[in-house]
């Protein structure tokens, strides 16, 4: 039973409304050029990971897709996108369920409606029993899951995830990667996943875009043609990881 806003999500097969097309885009902030001549196509339902050194403009890329930033040159066409910021941006004064339903409230739903819609998914997200908890009472992994649920409930075909697991410890990160893979299988979306973890990119994405240092542009696009579920130690995965690191210039 989906809420009304969710039902309006375009099916991932609809290219116009669910894909991302970035053509030769330049973005500058004052004297600093964040992106230069960046071109990227993401098909509906595809998961593309964006990896690069810090400061290479990964977050700017997401902001471009979400419509928060206009390119200086070039063109961006994307379906409606929901952003999951780098730090979970959970509002500390709202309960978990109210945080999850934030997008619905902004869209005009009442507090009760938003809560009801969010509540349904709590069990599936491993958050059962924590509906009324405040973010401060949740573990890091749980907070990320609430934030991801919030992002999903925005009901948009494109998801822009900005280093969703960056602040988690290694163990939690592994668990969350597995969890995310499963979640995206249940709810397929067009996903742009920014991460600094090369292995994570290879494990989760259909393709991996490797960005140069600032001003960022795509240096190489790796196809991850490995069936899911993927194992960290599978040879194909390891090879791809090595290739990516090589391109990025890691020692």
């Amino acid at each position, binding site marked *: 039973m989906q809420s009304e806003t969710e039902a309006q999500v375009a099916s991932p097969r609809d290219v116009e409304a669910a894909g991302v097309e970035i053509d030769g885009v330049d973005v500058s902030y004052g004297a600093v050029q964040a992106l230069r001549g960046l071109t990227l196509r993401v098909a509906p339902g595809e998961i593309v990971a964006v990896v690069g050194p810090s400061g290479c403009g990964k977050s700017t890329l997401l902001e471009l897709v979400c419509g928060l930033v206009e390119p200086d040159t070039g063109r961006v066409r994307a379906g409606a996108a929901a952003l999951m910021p780098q730090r979970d941006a959970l509002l500390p004064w709202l309960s978990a369920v109210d945080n999850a339903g934030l997008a619905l409230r*902004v869209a005009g739903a009442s507090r009760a409606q938003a809560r009801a819609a969010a509540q349904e998914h709590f069990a599936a997200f491993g958050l059962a029993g924590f509906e009324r908890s405040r973010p401060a009472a949740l573990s890091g992994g749980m907070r990320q899951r609430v934030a991801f649920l919030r992002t999903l409930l925005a009901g948009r075909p494109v998801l822009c995830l900005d280093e969703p697991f960056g602040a988690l410890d290694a163990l939690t990160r592994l668990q969350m990667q597995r969890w995310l893979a499963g979640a995206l299988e249940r709810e397929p979306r067009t996903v742009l996943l920014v991460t600094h973890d090369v292995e994570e990119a290879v494990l989760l994405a259909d393709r991996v875009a490797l960005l140069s240092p600032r001003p960022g542009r795509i240096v190489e696009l790796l196809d991850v043609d490995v069936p899911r579920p993927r194992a960290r130690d599978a040879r194909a995965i390891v090879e791809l990881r090595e290739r990516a690191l090589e391109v990025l210039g890691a020692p």
Partner: protein
Amino acid sequence: MIAALALLALLCGWEALVGFGGVDPLLLPAPTQVLEALWEDRSLLAPDLWATTYEVVLGLAAAVAAGAVLAIAMHLSPVLRRALRPLVIGSQAVPVPVIAPLVILVLGFGLAPKVLLVALVCFFPITINLYDGLRGADADARRLLRSLQASRWQALRLVEAPAALPAAFTGLKVAAAVAVIGAVFAEWAGAERGLGHALLTANGQLETARAFAATLLLFLLAIALYGACALLERRVVDWTPRTGHGGP
């Protein structure tokens, strides 16, 4: 505990000083004399306490109302911010003892000028703290709302205003502590009742113990006000501020 003992020691020393003739009780009455005056003159001081409390509470409320409007206006409009910020800061620099007689001149001897003066004293801490709180809302949360196509009003209501509450309460507590001063100056400039007025009359008749008793009540009033605001804060700001990320 230490503080209580220190206070007790101070009071004993004070009592002894006066008791042994070290200082004229007309200049500095002993603590027991002050408490005696507080009890004996209670029928006199009680309505004065009520009057001053009324002025202070109304003035604080007025400052909160005006401060909220101005802080939000400055937050939403850069033009207003440029225009109003110097005035807000200037309001703090206005010497209340000098302004008070002028306000009385214009507004008379009633309640209005006193409320206005208390509001003037409270206005700056409330407004500036609320304004800073609004500005300091989490940037990621704001970006998130923008990406959800939230209106300016929604951003204010859902993120900025709640985020500003801790800072706002800081401002309110500061204001509560100094509001009493505004009321006293206002009463000194022209009043028929109130603790400030009682203080003046008592001094004029060398009723120093009563004057001290009135001062003690003013002090307790300020503390009670601060405490009330702190209590309110605990009820309203019932979330812990962001710390780091935890474990699994």
